[in-house]
């Protein structure tokens, strides 16, 4: 039997054992939804249901993560939950991307993002069976160290100069967030987590996504990412619970979509209603399970660890 299948089965067993031991409940939520995340950097795949109840057809989106329905369960009072979810993203295929992949996503009522980082580290250690050390950096400190600029204070001309200094030849990048993503992906990420688990936290508010802003300093968001051996493995938030603020962010993202000529997406009114009713204070994280498998097998690309990738699905 191929190693990649056995290794995945073992990884799934370890994940379930980990959460069983901590009283976190496994849940399943629908893959199809009439709403979608509005993040302009994540493009959902669309399909259509036609039949009883919807004879004229109902547009549905394949989930890009199970975040919205899981938050609805939390608002219902589910307590701590996790899910092993197949998720779908249009336009993403490469060494570390496949348009369909497995996310391990979990939520911890009562945790902040630092407590959740500790639990993510425990989970990865349990999955890999290695006593890995942990280090944490703020987003700003990483930029000062590796790029030599402050990600919020530097203007676009200074970011461009920093890119030239690093020998990067770049086409089409214009705004600040694109520059920050470029430095993170091309320069910083490959250097992170060489032999330990590296957490990056306190992202610029412009990249808050669904994280709350830091209570003491609203220039930054309570968001973190995990990098291991130069690979982005997980993204987590101390979750935004403010329904009005969430709606404002969705609408702003749709405005950005319009500006970029992307499809506008229907807001998840069910999620907004759940936030309105009250999402418990919680932290949540999504971890790319295929990438974790890739690292555990020392594979160089996702295709090598998937049963079948885009190329032969």
């Amino acid at each position, binding site marked *: 039997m191929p190693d990649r299948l056995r290794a995945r089965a073992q990884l799934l067993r370890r994940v379930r054992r980990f959460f069983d031991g901590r009283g976190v409940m496994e849940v399943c939520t629908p893959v199809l939804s009439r709403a979608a995340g509005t*993040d302009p*950097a*994540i493009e959902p795949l669309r399909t259509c249901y036609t039949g009883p109840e919807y004879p004229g057809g109902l547009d549905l989106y394949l989930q890009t993560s199970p975040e919205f329905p899981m938050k609805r369960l939390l608002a219902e009072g589910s307590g701590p939950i996790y899910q092993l979810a197949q998720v779908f993203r249009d*336009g*993403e*295929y*490469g*060494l570390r*991307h496949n348009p369909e992949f497995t996310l391990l996503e979990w939520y911890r009522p009562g945790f902040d993002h630092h407590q959740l980082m500790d639990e993510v580290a425990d989970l990865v250690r349990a999955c890999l069976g290695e006593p890995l050390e942990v280090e944490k950096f703020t987003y700003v400190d990483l930029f000062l160290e590796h790029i030599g600029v402050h990600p919020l204070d530097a203007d676009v001309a200074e970011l461009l100069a920093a890119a030239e200094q690093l020998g*990067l*030849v*770049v*086409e*089409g*990048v214009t705004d600040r*967030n*694109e520059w*920050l*993503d*470029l430095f*993170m*992906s*091309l320069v910083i*990420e490959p250097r992170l987590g060489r032999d330990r688990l590296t957490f990056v936290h306190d992202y610029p508010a412009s*990249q808050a*996504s669904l994280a709350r802003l830091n209570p003491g300093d609203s220039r930054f968001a309570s968001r973190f*990412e995990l990098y291991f051996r130069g690979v*982005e493995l997980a*993204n987590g938030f101390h979750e935004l619970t403010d329904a009005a603020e969430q709606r404002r962010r969705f609408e702003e993202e749709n405005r950005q979509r319009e500006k970029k000529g992307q499809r506008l997406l229907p807001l998840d009114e069910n999620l907004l209603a759940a936030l309105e009713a009250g999402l418990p204070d919680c932290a949540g994280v*999504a971890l*790319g399970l295929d990438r974790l498998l890739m690292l555990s097998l020392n594979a160089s690309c996702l295709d090598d660890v998937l049963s079948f990738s885009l190329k032969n699905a």
Partner: protein
Amino acid sequence: MATYSTNEFRGGLKLLLDGDPCVIIENEFVKPGKGQAFNRVKLRNLKTGRVLEKTFKSGESVEAADVMDRDLQYLYNDGEYWYFMDNESFEQYQADAQAMGDAVKWIKDQDVCNVTLWNNQPILVEAPNFVVLEITDTDPGLKGDTSGGGGKPATLETGAVVRVPLFVQIGEKIKVDTRKGEYISRAKD
């Protein structure tokens, strides 16, 4: 003007960058989970042969280079240009020294070469991977030495110099790998 979007990027695709035709050697898709996607591309400039790295924001379009590869037969050299012919259309092309590059060291009349045409002008001529050439000069060396070790320089009819085993003599024809500039074997006529 034909263009390619980054989704069409793959090895072998020819683009026009800063006015020069380039070919993609490697294309890597890079994207943070919650951020902008990029195509990190390694290219070869077809005029200069230089390899460069460039990162494109995914979704951008880049002008295509009107570049094609043709098998053309080498005819002659008039001191300034090297002349080639398409054996099907009988169309003739002239290549300058820059386009010829190293190929001048290896080719003889009648050889068929892979020629890269940009806007219908040769910009890169590749010698066949293997050529058979006569040795015009080499040290007589030791007859009967078949050890293969050491070797000696030999000048070929095109003027190129390669290392050959000691037993190979003036007037013999040898097979050469033009990509490495290495002797392969003696050639039978």
